[in-house]
């Protein structure tokens, strides 16, 4: 059902945890199945220097959280804002159709965290 890459990220998720003095934090909930994802950012010179996540959700939710942190790190916040669900799913080698909505969660959480950072630094 899941690709090897999904299972790898599920089993060995990168960047799990919190950042104590985060510059931005975003939390989103998934109406579809009730999952929750939170992303923490550390930003320097508009570049994401550190990123961590916590997720309550299925294997796909955990894997997409993990992979989006890898994709976002070292990107400028503008670049990071352009990451799409589709890219996340593709990076994982695809997701089962019923699980496509889980990748929304990751992209949305990242976006929310970046917006939080922007608000804090207005």
């Amino acid at each position, binding site marked *: 059902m899941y690709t090897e890459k999904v299972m790898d990220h599920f089993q060995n998720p990168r960047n*799990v945890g919190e950042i104590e003095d985060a510059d931005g934090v975003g939390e989103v909930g998934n*109406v579809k199945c009730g999952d929750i994802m939170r992303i923490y950012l550390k930003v320097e010179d508009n570049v994401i220097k550190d990123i961590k996540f916590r997720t309550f959700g299925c294997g796909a939710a955990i894997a997409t959280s993990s992979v989006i942190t890898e994709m976002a790190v070292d990107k400028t916040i503008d670049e990071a804002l352009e990451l799409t669900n589709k890219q996340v799913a593709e990076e994982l080698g695809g997701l089962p159709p019923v699980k496509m909505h889980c990748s929304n969660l990751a992209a949305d959480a990242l976006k929310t965290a970046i917006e939080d950072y922007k608000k804090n630094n207005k």
Partner: protein
Amino acid sequence: MKRVYLDHAATTPLHPSILDVMLPFYKELFGNPSSVHSFGREVKKHVDKARKQVAESINADLDEEIIFTSGGTEADNLAILGVAAALKEKGNHIITSSVEHHASLDTCDALAKEGYRVTRLSVDEHGVIDLEELKSAISKDTILITLMHANNEVGTVQPIEKVSKIAKEHDIYLHTDAVQSFGQIPVDVNQLGVDLLTISGHKIYGPKGIGALYVRKGTKLKNLAHGGGQENKIRPGTENVAGIVGLGKAAEMASNSVDEMQEVEKKRDRLIEGLLKMDDVKLNGHPEKRLPTNVNVSIEYIEGEALILSLDMEGIAASSGSACTSGSLDPSHVLMHMGLSHQTAHGSLRLTLGKGTTDEDIDYVLDRVPKIVERLRNMSPLYGK
């Protein structure tokens, strides 16, 4: 890798001695039981014998009260739609519970769409219906009560005998889905006092794709499918002979399993005890009136599919009532109707033991589950806040 199968409520492994009785029907005994010639007649005898085995295993009075179907789902559909169609002149009200298997639940929903009135009885925190609510739901239009004997998710056993008394007083047919209970607790159609009863092969160490509906003599039931005269014209189509013979043997073995189940129950209790040692873990279902094989716990702060996948990677097969495993919006309707919150239901874990489950299996699970739970909780935004 060690593999521990604890999903016997989903399906059971076929017992080798059941395969043995099936094999001849995949070899030399290949005739069509409807044929007049000896290739057919010799097979017919074995279909008759299997019917007798099933009848005896549930203490039916007559062999012909057994109708073979393609499984539990079809038997539930046949019972509910078949009675509804046969009695539509008499009334249009059906009573069921809110925690039925989808085979009954969705069938009642379909009837509701067609204009039947369906009452779905609520259940208490343990998943048991309320007999007073049942009584007050009955009206002169009520034609059928369909209520599962034991629940597939939480193992809760319903008071079918008491329901039967009420049904009889009002002259209403009673159907029970005994797919999960059969082979685990006594299932006797006369003691239960039911008019229709569903069983399924693959839940009792028999083959998949075969089941049976018990139909008490005289019960009005309309066939859903049309064609040959098989199964007393109630269920046409060339018989799945190997499946039927396998079901016959499986039913015979199931009715002799009650002792074995006491051993299983001990292991179940040890498993429950071990799991409840974790923080924020709670048993779902009834503390006593539950199937001897069923463990169902809610583990707070984590989600079921992630748990199942993690267990799977350790070789442990389990299931969950999580919304994420079903692809639907809500977690298990059973857990929700028992009053669990969306989140708590989301983190449910069902482990169902079988005849082959060993003490080592239980030890292994009790070693792995806490580690996995800790790992997932550490990933969870809900934990430790």
